[in-house]
């Protein structure tokens, strides 16, 4: 056996070919593919949650931004009519004549309902002309100037045409302004509309829409493309033209208004994204911990063989990246499927004020955040538990590390207590910082959980110790629960459950509180009459589409009808918010919803509003106008009117805020006798369904008005509001499912590695049943501790989240602690996780007695 000769000299140390790293990975993969698969599944689930959550966020405002960009093209400014009212088309010539104006393009915009053989869809119709085409927006990219001017058809996006069963060239029924029109339809697709094909719009020539809407010579806004060097000059000129009845706004103003209106939803998206990220990360981290034991052995082995720390890191980093890349790929695919299957925010309740769409907007940042999070979890999951094995000169003995651990053991609870105090302070004095409070609360939970876990273990020991006969299952489980080698993993399992249940209980509780508040608004605002008669379409939910109520007399003459009154409502841009303005009829018993008053006296406010010249405002609107109780302000309605603040109310469920005023004041402001709905009260003894049937007969089959009972309209509003809260429900459910899978898989893997220990313990005479019970006690202690702590903190989270929601958004929220939600989440997650680990636990308990060494 000879030594190697000179030509076999070894290269200098330090290099490690990527091929060798790959070889080391491949060799190990063969024997632990199941563990790796589990880790991949864990990271993939986390990435999927994170990605779907990000896509839901970007898709929220994406369609509105796309639509606005597509419409305004190169224009920078616009002159806009107020409160849904148009203005004279002659203004276009005045604007075009302003120095510095390159193009002045008129647009008429109308809410309508398109009806075909397959159903109906609410749309926003844009009436454009050749000047609009010249702005080069994508909305009209497929149209020539001549088509825009002359082709008297309704251009419908293909998804809407498919929904309504309308084909190219068919006649469509268009319900517009309380009347039905038959119009020829042209179906257009992606090539004409680009991404706007997914939005709820329709396009038609301006002059044609003016005829259809009976608004001859009227436009909603004028888009202005100015010479960039003379923008200020053009703005000043537009201000002069606008006077006090029109507004000059930036071209992207619609997107800005939508951002404000969608703020509560986007905040809920942010909070759920944070919870998703935390759970996803913990899920992935738990999954990586499954493979720690084999990597630890490898790191020790390589260090003994003379591998440098940098080389060991390269070997482990390759592990992490290989795992991470595969898992991120799978996770992104899963997340994509999740986001396509409806995981997202339903903002259809905003449809009356903004043209919306179903477009799913996926940005690079969504990819980057989800992929980065997954890779980070993989890298941390691989490297963090092996710091000692990689870097310590003496990997097996680490007195310095012990000192650090002791310091952390003291500092963590102190930091946890500080975070808890901060969360309490935010709840009490600054609920507007709810997101920070929730993060502080989550952090506090994570930092205090080790103490809670130690307490539970001590309690278990005490229970067994006080009995005359020790409880074998507890006595066998106790050393494992106390063992330092399993501590990180045990804590990670309990933390996953804690964070998931905490997040789910907070979200579900806040959702239930908000739903209660919205239900109350529905009762106070919508459930006030026997029948509602409204023009159908997106604006009928909050009753904001104004029409001329020519059918009022016919309705009043219908047998069984006791009284018909005009109900006024509109959306109006006030202080950079799209506000819901409502004016109940003069005879309404409670014009000011009593349960919604937050500042002021209900009776006084009601009397003031009835007397005229007073209004009640949402807090956000009052803040935007910089007014308080008793202050005067000018409402920027089509005919500006002066009002005083009678009381501050919630936003009545409309995120932009609400103003309630006297009917006569509304008529002054809007300069006419239009209505958004007719309120119909029936004679005693006439049921709502009888009344509805009678009204339908009186209106006739060609009527473009719909009749709903009070409860039906309330229910539709409730359903729409629930849709807006779907996201919170979805994230809570997915979080709990993810937690069950994460905890159960990590626990199963932990138990599986216990087989040698169990085999040795069985040599002492313990049976399979005793071992199984001990493993169940160990699993149960971790699951129960984590989930119970999470549920307890979740109850606090409900209050914090609900108060934050009320303060930030002005939504009506009933702040109630919902113990049932906490109990159900705790019980479901704990029971499901216990069930999942029961089988692997039994298989581990069945191991044959043996002297095998090493876990």
């Amino acid at each position, binding site marked *: 056996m*000879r030594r190697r000769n000179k030509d076999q000299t070894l290269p200098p140390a330090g290099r*490690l070919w990527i091929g060798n790293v790959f070889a080391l990975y491949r060799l190990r993969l063969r024997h632990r593919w199941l563990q790796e698969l589990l880790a991949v599944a864990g990271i993939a689930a986390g990435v999927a949650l994170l990605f779907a959550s990000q896509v839901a966020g970007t898709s929220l405002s994406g369609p509105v931004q796309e639509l606005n960009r597509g419409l305004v093209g190169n224009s920078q400014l616009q002159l806009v009519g107020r409160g849904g009212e148009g203005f004279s088309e002659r203004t276009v010539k005045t604007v075009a004549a302003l120095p510095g104006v390159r193009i002045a393009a008129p647009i008429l915009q109308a809410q309508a309902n398109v009806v075909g053989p397959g159903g109906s869809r609410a749309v926003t119709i844009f009436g454009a002309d050749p000047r609009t085409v010249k702005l080069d927006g994508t909305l009209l990219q497929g149209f020539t100037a001549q088509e825009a001017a002359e082709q008297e058809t309704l251009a419908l996006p293909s998804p809407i045409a498919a929904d309504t069963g309308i084909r190219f060239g068919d006649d469509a029924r268009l319900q517009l302004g309380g009347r039905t029109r038959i119009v020829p339809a042209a179906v257009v697709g992606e090539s004409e509309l680009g991404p706007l094909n997914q939005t709820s719009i329709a396009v038609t020539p301006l002059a044609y829409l003016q005829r259809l809407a009976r608004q001859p010579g009227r436009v909603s806004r004028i888009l202005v493309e100015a010479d960039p060097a003379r923008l200020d000059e053009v703005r000043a000129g537009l201000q002069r033209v606008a006077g006090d009845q029109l507004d000059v706004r930036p071209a992207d103003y619609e997107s800005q208004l939508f951002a404000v209106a969608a703020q509560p939803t986007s905040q809920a998206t942010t909070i759920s994204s944070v919870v998703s990220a935390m759970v996803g990360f913990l899920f992935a981290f738990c999954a990586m911990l499954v493979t720690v034991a084999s990597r630890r052995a490898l790191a020790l082995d390589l260090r003994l063989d*003379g591998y440098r*720390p940098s080389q060991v890191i390269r070997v482990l980093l390759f592990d992490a990246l290989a795992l991470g890349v595969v898992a991120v790929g799978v996770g992104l695919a899963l997340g994509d499927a999740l986001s396509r299957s409806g995981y997202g925010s339903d903002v259809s309740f905003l449809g009356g004020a903004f043209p919306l769409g179903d477009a799913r907007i996926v940005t690079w940042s969504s990819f980057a955040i989800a992929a980065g999070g997954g890779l980070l979890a993989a890298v941390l999951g691989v490297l963090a538990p092996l710091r000692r094995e990689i870097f310590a000169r003496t990997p*097996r003995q680490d007195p310095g590390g012990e000192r650090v651990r002791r310091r952390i053991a003291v500092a963590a609870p102190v930091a946890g207590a500080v975070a808890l105090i901060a969360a309490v302070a935010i709840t009490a004095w600054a609920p507007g910082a709810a997101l920070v409070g929730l993060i502080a609360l989550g952090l506090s939970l994570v930092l205090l959980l080790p103490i809670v876990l130690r307490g539970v273990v001590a309690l278990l020991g005490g229970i067994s110790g006080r009995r005359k006969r020790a409880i074998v299952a507890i006595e066998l489980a106790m050393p494992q629960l106390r063992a330092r080698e399993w501590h990180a993993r045990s804590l990670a399992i309990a933390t996953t459950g804690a964070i998931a249940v905490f997040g789910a209980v907070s979200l579900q509780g806040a959702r239930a509180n908000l739903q209660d508040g919205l239900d109350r608004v529905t009762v106070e605002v919508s459930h006030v009459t026997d029948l509602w008669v409204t023009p159908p379409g997106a604006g009928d939910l909050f009753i904001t589409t104004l029409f001329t109520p020519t059918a009022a007399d016919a309705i009043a003459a219908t047998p069984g009808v006791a009284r018909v009154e005009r109900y006024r409502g509109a959306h109006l841009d006030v202080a950079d918010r799209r506000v819901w303005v409502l004016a109940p009829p003069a005879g309404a018993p409670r014009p000011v919803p009593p349960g919604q008053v937050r500042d002021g006296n209900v009776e006084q406010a009601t009397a003031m509003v009835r007397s005229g010249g007073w209004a009640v405002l949402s807090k956000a609107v009052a803040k935007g106008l910089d007014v308080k109780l008793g202050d005067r302000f000018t409402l920027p309605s089509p005919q500006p009117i002066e009002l005083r603040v009678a009381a501050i109310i919630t936003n009545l469920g409309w995120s932009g805020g609400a103003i309630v005023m006297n009917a006569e004041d509304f008529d002054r402001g809007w300069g006419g006798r239009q209505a958004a709905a007719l309120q119909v009260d029936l004679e005693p003894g006439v049921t709502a369904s009888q009344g509805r049937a009678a009204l339908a007969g009186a209106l006739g089959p060609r009527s473009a008005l719909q009749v709903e009972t009070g409860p039906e309209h309330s229910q539709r509003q409730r359903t729409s509001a629930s849709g807006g809260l779907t996201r919170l429900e979805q994230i809570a459910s997915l979080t709990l499912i993810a937690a069950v899978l994460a905890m159960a898989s990590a626990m199963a893997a932990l138990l599986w590695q216990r087989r040698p220990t169990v085999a040795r313990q069985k040599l002492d005479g313990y049976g399979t049943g005793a071992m199984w019970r001990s493993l169940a006690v160990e699993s149960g202690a971790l699951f129960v501790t984590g989930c119970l702590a999470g549920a307890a903190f979740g109850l606090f989270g409900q209050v914090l989240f609900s108060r934050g929601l009320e303060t930030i958004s002005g939504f009506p929220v009933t702040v109630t602690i919902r113990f049932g939600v906490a109990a159900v989440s705790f019980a479901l997650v704990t029971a499901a996780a216990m069930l999942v680990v029961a089988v692997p636990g039994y298989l581990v308990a069945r191991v044959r007695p043996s002297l095998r060494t090493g876990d």
Partner: protein
Amino acid sequence: MTVDARSDDGAALELRRLVKHYRTGAETVRAVDDVSLRIDGGELVALFGPSGSGKSTLLMMAAAVTRPDSGSVLVGGRDVSVLSDREAADYRMYELGFVRQSIDLLGGASALDNAAMKLFGTGLSAREARRRVAPLLEQLGLGGRLDHRPHQLSMGERQRVMIARALSTDPRVVLADEPTGSLDSQRKHEALGLLRTVTKERGIATLLVTHDAHAVEYADRIRTLQDGVLLDAEQAPIPSHP
């Protein structure tokens, strides 16, 4: 016997007055207490001792994994106990072979890959590492089993793979930590015989830490460690076969 020039300059491995104490709470454990031991090239020294006697600590200090409180570990006259982490790693890579129990083999890797694993870290390509280690496995009697995985090998064969891995970088010192722990009596003889053969033929200084009484037959010298103190042959009972 072929011995390279390195072993001619005195002892290949010399432990000089090594001391290592550990503190556990208020108590100080004297794991290794003033131990000196010299092993020449081509010499196999068996170190006996009960559990907790300090054998593993001594081994870790010889491997430059644990730093002694005092004393030195001389390899070819160079004190490896004062090396930086990187230098210590290089020492283990090129001058030291560490033989441990065969349960440390990677289950998914062939005998050839398991034996080449250390060479992967030297900067050789994986292919070259395998090419270089293959003759070594053949010399150890595993020529026909290069592609076999650990579960397809006998316990004795697995131990030979571990020995091949330790010898793969042609070390001047071999430290063997209970290499026969999982072997039956016949395989123990085979493994110990093999260790003695390579020690002699390659001029390696081998320190064998063991409980196994069979080692007495193969060692050039026997020493015993008790409570951290190295006893002379006269002071310690020579282990006998069970």
